[in-house]
């Protein structure tokens, strides 16, 4: 038996969830696993640094979907699943006494899923001005990565930065760029 069905391949995440709430067909969970299982596994590997623990967490997460899909109203499944995965990993680490932080079960939508409708027609020179206003090395990293389309490694070599610094400059640069575009009322506020 396949874990999914061809008919579900063309469903959006929201349609899959609606279908599951109506029919409780487990192949819906199979389809969600096909789409995101490897991302959940990768995230678990990143947090837990251990393949067996990561596999346990992946199974726990997907088996709990049966109950959670019915219980929660989920607007952005991918983001919700990411939060669920992180929380699950943090709980696993807490069980091992690695951390003692209080876990937050809130389900939020990540920005990456709602930004599409925010993008308005911004003139190129306004975008360039906003990039120019970023602090170094964010300005250069954003240009090299998004305009010159260099890889992390190429950017790190060109600017003599570590890979982690390149990654964080991209994230921070994007966030600051968005703030600047909003300041000039060029971005619809979220």
């Amino acid at each position: 038996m396949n874990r999914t069905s061809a008919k579900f391949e063309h469903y959006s995440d929201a349609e899959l969830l609606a279908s599951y709430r109506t029919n409780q067909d487990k192949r819906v969970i199979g389809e969600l696993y096909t789409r995101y299982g490897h991302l959940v596994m990768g995230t678990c590997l990143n947090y837990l640094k251990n393949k067996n623990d990561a596999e346990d967490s992946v199974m726990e997460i997907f088996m709990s979907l049966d109950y959670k899909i019915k219980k929660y109203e989920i607007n952005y499944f991918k983001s919700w699943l990411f939060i669920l995965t992180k929380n699950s990993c943090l709980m696993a680490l807490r069980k091992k006494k690695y951390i003692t932080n209080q876990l937050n079960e809130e389900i939020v939508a990540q920005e990456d899923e709602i930004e599409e409708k925010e993008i308005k027609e911004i003139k190129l020179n306004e975008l360039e001005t906003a990039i120019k206003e970023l602090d170094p090395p964010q300005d250069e990293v954003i240009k090299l990565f998004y305009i010159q389309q260099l890889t992390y490694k190429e950017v790190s070599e060109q600017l003599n930065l570590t890979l982690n610094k390149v990654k964080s400059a991209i994230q921070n640069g994007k966030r600051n760029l968005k703030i600047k575009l909003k300041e000039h009322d060029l971005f619809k506020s979220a």
Partner: protein
Amino acid sequence: MIFLNLLNRIFGPRKPLSRQEIEDYKTGAGDMHEIESKAASSDFNDQALEGWENSSTSVNDGMLSTDKKINQFIKKGNAGDSSTKGMTLSFILFTLTMLTLIIFTYQGNNAVEKKPQIKEAIKVENSRSKEIDFYTAISTEKQITSNELIKNQETKKEEKEDAVFSEPKIEKVKIESQNTDIKEEDIQLPIQSSGKIPNSSKSSLVYKNAREVYLSGLKNIDYRAHRKSPFKIKNSLDVGIPASQSSKEDKQEFPSLQTKEINYMEYLATSSSYFNKDQFKIALKHYLIILDTYPDDVNANFYGGLCYFNLGQFDKTTELLKKSYTFRFGNFREEARWFSARANLEQNYLVKGKYLLNEIIEEGGFYSKKAKVVLGNLEK
């Protein structure tokens, strides 16, 4: 257009990374920048990529165990539901013989159910193929043939050589590939060491020319470094299903519907060969299949767009040509804009067409003379 692309690239949502992409990234075989862009657009992609990157196992091996467990979980879950419903009825109504009959019926149903599932998977491809068969080619004088493209390539090359005749010629490598060079538009804005952008109203965007390879005499981007893994294509549904293979017992069900793996460059070479022979319908089908796996493939977008042009589908022409050049792969930009202008004019979109022609003239490239002639005729 350019800045919307750029904005989308920075802020737009990206699809989740696939297993193949993560695996390609681990092995260094994929389009590293594209994969990293996806990672940069979502924390989920980013964390997952980092996790896999630091893991010693391949993605497929790493997922093997959970794949099996999930399959069992789903099998059990669905079987559990049906067995609960069926138990009471079977206990009251059916004898052992009846149960055997039910099992046979169940098996028969399963075999029947599979047909629409498989059909559904390739329905889109088949309807597209049928639609293409209905297209009618435009008159041969208006068609963009391989002869025209090759002639243009040669003239362009000669003009380039004339311009730099005093410089040493670039040594040719096998299959006429060219080394990567960066073609800067006259509207460039270089990155300075200070990291500040000079204040200019013009665009700073630079289109790179990637390594090229000539297939059936036609220019193509050499994607060999990016498309090492074979991609899957589905066989046509047009062939019937042999009666002997319609039952569940046959393991090789519907062989004509199975997928097969094919090397990208070989498939592209076949597609180019069809284009070269002016077999635009079959060439288009090939290019669209490439686009199913690689939607951003500039070769397939460019030549697919030209096939649409020759088959009179001008709106689809401009749609594909728009995607036939990117900052990294700008090799087709000049041609794509020229043919887009022609497609617009064919549809009587005079404003759009003239606008593009004016831009081509302003940039002063290879097609600027032709654009001037066309524009002159339009304004008479």
